[in-house]
């Protein structure tokens, strides 16, 4: 999951489709995100590379829509509904996830265990 600036990023991703849950007037997904290009990457406990300014999932609400869909804490969000999330500010990321007119968000997330699983299965 490390990236070299200027080089294309390749990652083993998992596609997660989350249906938003309506709570009163809010549509919630049930997780928290951290990170962003305007944030300090050194404080990210989930990232391997401490200069990674991507968006990470910091919490997943138990039995929330995100957990149901398979999202896990520590996942790095690569895309939301086709929008890139590797080079966005924190607020942009939040906005992309919380659009009021979208009921479903399709994320592409990556995590270390996926890569390892693939590596081990190919050994």
């Amino acid at each position: 999951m490390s990236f070299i600036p200027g080089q294309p990023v390749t990652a083993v991703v998992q596609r997660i489709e989350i249906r938003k849950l309506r709570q009163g007037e809010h549509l919630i997904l049930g997780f928290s995100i951290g990170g962003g290009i305007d944030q300090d990457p050194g404080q990210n406990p989930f990232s391997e590379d401490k200069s990674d300014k991507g968006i990470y999932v910091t919490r997943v609400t138990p039995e929330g829509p995100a957990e149901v869909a398979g999202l896990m804490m520590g996942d790095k969000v690569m895309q939301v509904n086709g929008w890139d999330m590797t080079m966005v500010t924190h607020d942009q990321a939040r906005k992309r996830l919380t659009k009021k007119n979208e009921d479903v968000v399709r994320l592409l997330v990556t995590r270390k265990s996926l890569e390892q699983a693939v590596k081990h299965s190919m050994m």
Partner: protein
Amino acid sequence: MFCRNQTTRATIARGSALEMEIRRGKFRRSVFLDTLQDSNIQKKIDHEIRMRDGACKLLAACSQRDQALEASKSLLTCNIRIMAYMSELQRMKEAQVMQRVALRSSDAGPTDDRLPCKGKVAISDLRIPLMWKDTEYFKNKGELHRCAVFCLLQVGAEIHDTDMVIVDRTLTDICFDNTIVFSEASPGFELRVEMYSCCSEEDYSTGSTSRKLASKLSSSLGRSAGKKLRVAMDPGACSPISNGGGATLLLPLPTVVGPKYHLLAHTTLSLSHVQDSFRTHDLSISGNEECSHWVPLYGNVCCRLAAQPHCMTQQMMSGCLKVKFGGDPQSWTNVYGVLKGTNLFCYHRQEDVEANIEPAFTISINKKTRIRASEKDRHNKAQSICISNHYGGEEVTHTLSADSREDTHRWMEAFWQQFYDMSQWKQCCDDLMKIELPSPRKPTLVTSKQGSLYHEMVIDTSDDISTVTDILARRMEELELRSQLGTSPPWMSLFEESPGCPRTHNRLPHSPLRCPRPGLLSSEASLTSDSDSPCSTSPCSRYSGWAEPLSLSSPSSHFRPRTLSLDAKLSTLRGRGYGGVLQCSCQPPSSSSLAPIPAQCVPQATLSCSSSTSSNSSSEGSHSPELSDGTPFSRPSSARQSLRNLRAKLDPRNWLQSQV
């Protein structure tokens, strides 16, 4: 034959037994007529009619959209095939009539027309690029408008269809992987490619009004089309053969309720388009954006159209020959010659041909070869044939002689035929083009979505961890023996705590021989997996797994509890690696059995996480719209929220986290 103005002179008495026989179509007046072809086509028509009836019934009966689309596609294909066969039948009858008329009118001998050999024409790797507006493609806005698309390929009366592909705006091209081979095509073939599409969104169990309309339209069309056909097939006009079975063909087309395909684009390919590589051809598009079945086509189709004329693949002529090189008068060699493709292979003996031994020598017969028959040889009475070629600037002549005059004639005839074929098939005779026969269908890796780059490396959502554990478990099985030697892979430590845990207890009911998963073990980046049925439970089954205790030995337990424990393990490993702020102390129950329920595990984790984060909130300062521990979905009051927001956003030391 019963009308006065008929050109035939024979008359049959009405009401006689002979007339009845003729009416029944069994009696053939003329011995020159080839009835075998007729009956073949008739059989094909009957077969297609039966298929059509079956498709109609299926269409009426099926409830799912996919089935309806497939059934509608077969219906359309059957209808088109029936039309093609009937017009072929008509053509054949007309040809017969013309032949008979010609025979009677003139005493011309057998015509000297040479017919070129037939060949195999194969079209493969059809790809039709699409032209979405960039707003549609990239932003993924609006509803996903989907269409079902397939192609029909027609040469003469032979019609093949491709598989159906569902197109939506995530695709950049429509690809048809089928290779379609037409076995008997003449060099003047016309391969008509038609693309049909149908919108796959509407509800087909429509209300009564539209059904009435549909039925009215289709029945009225059927009747008028039937009338036309009846007129065309009228036995009174030309042919003495009355089609006894013709009545059944002309019933009005059955009313069709269901998805209807419309012609979207077509093009015609011919010999000039044949090439051993991919080429792009233009499409004529019918329809515009307003149609429901519209798919934005770029206007081209790319495909590989290859042809193998029989003169290149089959032995056109073979026999014993005597060959003389150059001008040497006495050195005749006895060979067995085989004319195939652009070469005359000369083997020492006839048996060598089957034994695949290399020929003694090869004389090339191509466009530049010149062949002459000569009588010059005084030693033999038979004619001899001179073949001259240019090999690198030099003219090399071989002289062939056959045993008898008739043989020589036959060889000359074969050579002329070969030249004629080569002139007709043009570029196909330069080199033999490869045609890959469609192999028996392998279980292909079916990706749920084709197309765009972003979807290339995806693991199917419902199978993520279970697939991983499957792989791991399987590797463990394989390594069982190896581990006795002491070498165990590093990840074995994951399972050391709970020795029996991720073992395939759950798999005992299943056969130990599980089919390999080509998706996951392939070295390609795409990791789509076709999973065993137990694995592909929907994500909701995760919760069913939570409720029941994880029991190691019960074969009925779901996979999810097991995988959750693996998740817990993996997150433990990850957690141990933190020096960082968030102490994710979600260690799995440290007891060796996993009976302590995962249900406790993760809320524990969350609780500990949030407690630790709240304890650190002073230094981090920002868990702005974070959830409180109690009800997971309640939100803090808005005033506090906004104040926290502001403070958090303004403080550069914070690492913001937002609840979504």
